[in-house]
């Protein structure tokens, strides 16, 4: 079952952007073997930010609003990495915000299928 039936056919990533993300994730997988454990979280956050910047101009207005709403929090999360409690709280808020978007954009909002 598709979570977002109306968005399924939208192409929001170019081949070049996909390749850049692919290379970033592969390189992160390798460097993380040597890097501090907390960096793994930061790399994933950076990957999410890259994805956001790549797709921003080609998504629906609703998705663009979600992406814009995450701007400040992701930036702050990087700054507060040295404060694990604040960093965790920011990531939790980002997850909540995104989950709420999923609900708002799906049939679940109206009681589910």
């Amino acid at each position, binding site marked *: 079952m598709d979570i977002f039936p109306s968005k399924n056919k939208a192409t929001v990533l170019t081949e070049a952007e996909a390749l850049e993300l692919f290379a*970033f994730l592969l390189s992160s997988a390798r*460097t993380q073997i*040597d*890097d501090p454990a907390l960096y793994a979280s930061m790399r994933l956050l*950076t990957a999410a930010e890259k994805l956001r910047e790549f797709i921003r101009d080609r998504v629906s207005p609703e998705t663009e609003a979600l992406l814009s709403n995450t701007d400040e929090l992701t930036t702050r999360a990087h700054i507060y990495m040295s404060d694990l409690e604040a960093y965790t709280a920011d990531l939790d808020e980002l997850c909540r915000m995104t989950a709420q978007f999923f609900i708002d954009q799906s049939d679940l909002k109206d009681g589910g299928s």
Partner: protein
Amino acid sequence: MSAEFLQIIKSRRVIRDMTDQPVEPEKIERILDAGRWSPAAGNKRTIRFVVVQDPLSLQMVRVFSPGMFQKPQAVILLCIDWDVVVENQFAEGDKSPYIDLGAVMQTMMLAAHAQGLGSGPATSFSKEALRVILNLPANLTPEVEVCIGYAAPKDANQLPMLSKKRVTWQDLTHWERFES
């Protein structure tokens, strides 16, 4: 030591947000010259500098460098030359080349800062990918990327990460013998 030089040391920051303003070639050369004057174990020069300024090459290097947050106008890749290490009979496991790396890195970053440039090191990158992208010879291993560029205004005087308490030299120092 002049007060000005001390101030250069104390005001340098790792810059993670750089503008697209090109860096003057003579400034890069001064940074490289400063790196050459760094202390080196046994006065053997085990570190090689690979300068990357071509925009396409820079972009490729960046793609395979998860630790590179900035978009630099130049990257000076510091490599250990293992031919020199072997020729000079460094013992296996000798960390001297890595100490030299740190000295070169810091000297270059200070030279960049003294010329009004920002800099930032990165070690999280795929060595094998960079070997391919830059066609590095087998005797060189890429160890540290020194990113160079002009700091974006908001980043010019900021620490990239907040610290709850500023560390002082006293925090890091112990005088004389430790008590038993």
